């Protein structure tokens, strides 16, 4: 169980940077993912949490090479076959890797082309990779639908004939169609009603066992993450500020931002969320700061936080990006 399936090193993604050509001046652009490194172990569920705009979705997409990373490496090691650096793999190798490395989208509505029937959407990868057609395809898609708890006959419907939860099941079925090893679930349940969220999460857990899946689970909802993940990374403005076992993180949060997040959790009283430590104060997201990125919002910030980037420290099993990790 300790085998590494995904190794991410110094992954950086910058948007809108220009080198300064004939007709444009040099711009630094906006750093969405800032030198992120982590490992995902086979069979675990690795969670990434953060607010909107923290760069978690970009990170997920860079791993899959939906976006080209600006620098860094993403090494994917399937059970059979060579390890592959997805960050600069050629397209044909990427396509092979994508069979083992799938994605569940946040918005089931947007990710399912409304003009195609379920059989063509869910079976699209199968048609392409295995050349399945007709009965064989129907058989496989039928099996997939059943495994996500949908009726086999639904395969002839159009996606718009389904409810939100059902659609997300379709998205899951589609992700599973090629027997993947690693599934990146980008806010897979956040678009769903709370009751359906729970059902879907349970389904995911069941499927993880059944298919021996590894999940990279991206979410902004701490409760969901706590429920499903083995390890959790907290992302703030493009950086992992804390990575730890789920229990450790929720038990003893080390980073002030993690604390702020957890303080904001009580869902029952939305007004309380607003009072969370500086969490709602908007700061220009694009502006680079010299020191700690969280410093402007941090209740513990001192002189050094304004001027010097904090180092990554390992404190009792948790990696924390803070000058005062362990002290506060």
């Amino acid at each position, binding site marked *: 169980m300790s085998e590494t399936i995904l190794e991410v090193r110094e992954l950086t993604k910058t948007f809108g940077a220009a080198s300064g050509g004939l007709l444009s001046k040099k711009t630094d652009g906006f750093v969405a993912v800032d030198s992120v490194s982590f490992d995902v172990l086979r069979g675990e569920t690795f969670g990434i949490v953060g607010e*909107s705009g923290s760069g978690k*979705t970009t990170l997920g*997409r860079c791993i*899959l090479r*939906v976006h080209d990373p600006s620098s860094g490496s993403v090494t994917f090691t399937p059970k059979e076959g060579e390890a592959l650096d997805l960050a600069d793999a050629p397209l044909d190798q990427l*396509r092979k890797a*994508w*069979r083992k490395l*799938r*994605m569940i*989208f*946040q*918005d089931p*509505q*947007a*990710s*399912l*082309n*409304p*003009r*195609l*029937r379920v059989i063509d959407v869910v079976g*699209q*990868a199968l048609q*392409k*990779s295995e050349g399945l057609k007709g009965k064989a395809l129907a058989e496989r898609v039928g099996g997939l639908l059943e495994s996500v708890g949908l009726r086999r006959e639904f395969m*002839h*419907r*159009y996606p*718009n*004939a*389904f*409810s*939100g939860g059902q659609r997300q099941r379709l998205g899951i079925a*589609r992700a599973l169609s090629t027997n993947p090893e690693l599934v990146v679930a980008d*806010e897979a349940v*956040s*678009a*769903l*009603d709370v009751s359906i969220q729970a059902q879907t999460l349970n389904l995911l857990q069941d499927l993880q066992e059944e298919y021996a899946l590894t999940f990279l689970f991206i979410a*902004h909802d701490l409760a969901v993450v706590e429920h499903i993940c083995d390890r959790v990374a907290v992302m703030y403005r493009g950086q992992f500020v804390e990575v730890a076992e789920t229990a450790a993180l929720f038990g003893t949060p080390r980073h002030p931002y993690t604390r702020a997040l957890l303080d904001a959790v009580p869902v029952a009283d939305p007004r309380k969320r607003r009072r969370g430590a500086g969490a709602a104060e908007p700061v220009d997201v694009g502006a680079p700061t010299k020191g700690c990125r969280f410093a402007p919002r941090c209740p513990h910030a001192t002189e050094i936080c304004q001027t010097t980037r904090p180092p990554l420290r390992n404190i009792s099993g948790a990696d924390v990006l803070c000058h005062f990790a362990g002290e506060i």
Partner: protein
Amino acid sequence: MTAIDSASEVQAAESVKTPDLLGPWALMWRQFRRHKIAYFSLFIVGFVYFVALFGEFLSPADYLKTNTRAPFAPPQGIHFLAPDEDGDSRFLLHARGLKMEIDREAMRRHFVEDPEKVIPLGFFVKGHEYKLLWLMPTNRHFFGPIDPKQKVYFLGADRLGRDILSRIIMGTRISMSIGLVGVAVSLIVGVSLGGISGYYGGWIDNLIQRVIEFLRSIPTIPLWMGLAAAIPLDWPPLRTYFVVTLIVSMIGWTTLAREVRGKFLSLRHEDFVVAARLDGLSDWEIIRKHLVPSFASHIIASLTLAVPLMILAETSLSFLGIGLQPPIVSWGTLLKEAQNIRTIIEAPWLLIAPGTTIVVAVLALNFLGDGLRDAADPYAN
């Protein structure tokens, strides 16, 4: 990333009512039929193309045949009751003959309907020879005087005594096909260039955008005039016609290319396109299976809206005298011929008849396009 999209809930609620197997085209059709005027317009447009196709059959007279006894003859009504020998009225579809008086001093002809002179009318009557659908030689016409030697001008006659109704009918073929051919050219050029521009982006997008910007910044009429004047005079009318069509379609493709580009740009980052890519589909497969179907309906709507623009563009060309050459007749040339004070005063039907035809056809096409556009994206709202 936004939270729960309330629109999707609305959609979900609606989808309960939606029959299971209703596909996107069926949905569009349902939506389209709700737009009553558009639905009605579909039939008008269908009828107009029917007229274009069966022009000779539907025209009561040879559209080129002049008549010294009928220049500026006014429209003749259709009457139902005619007196028989006993002086009683009986049912007879007929028109009344025209008596012409020439006023040489004012250089004018007066026409008076002569109730005595009855010209019986009928369906499927004999008339001038033609080939139905360019194939079947025949001389049958849908409606007209039973005696082929008689002349009746339902919408009046022009300065050379030619039947305006027949000329409008025959002009339909030219005008409507100018729209179609022009739109086809715009479609091919616009979709390919717009697609390239939007899908690949980068320098090629920039280049194409500059070309479009450049073309749009030149006023169209000088452009047309320069190009039209460069057509060699010894070309046969049909080739000239084709080139005129191409010139007219210059206005269409830039708009279309911009639209297609915009669609590509916005669709390129849609989740279902990303998903398709992750499913292993190639660029070409994505364009074919996902992108093109997604905006095909929009394109169809835009094209429907472009056809009337082409028709109007041709009338402008004709007005400037650089459009079609006689004996080819189009709505534009008919309108141009009637574009003078003398016609307004003496023979307003020469202006009203083709004018109304153009307005009705253009209206119908616009409503059709409008309805198609509203229906184009059944998932939009």
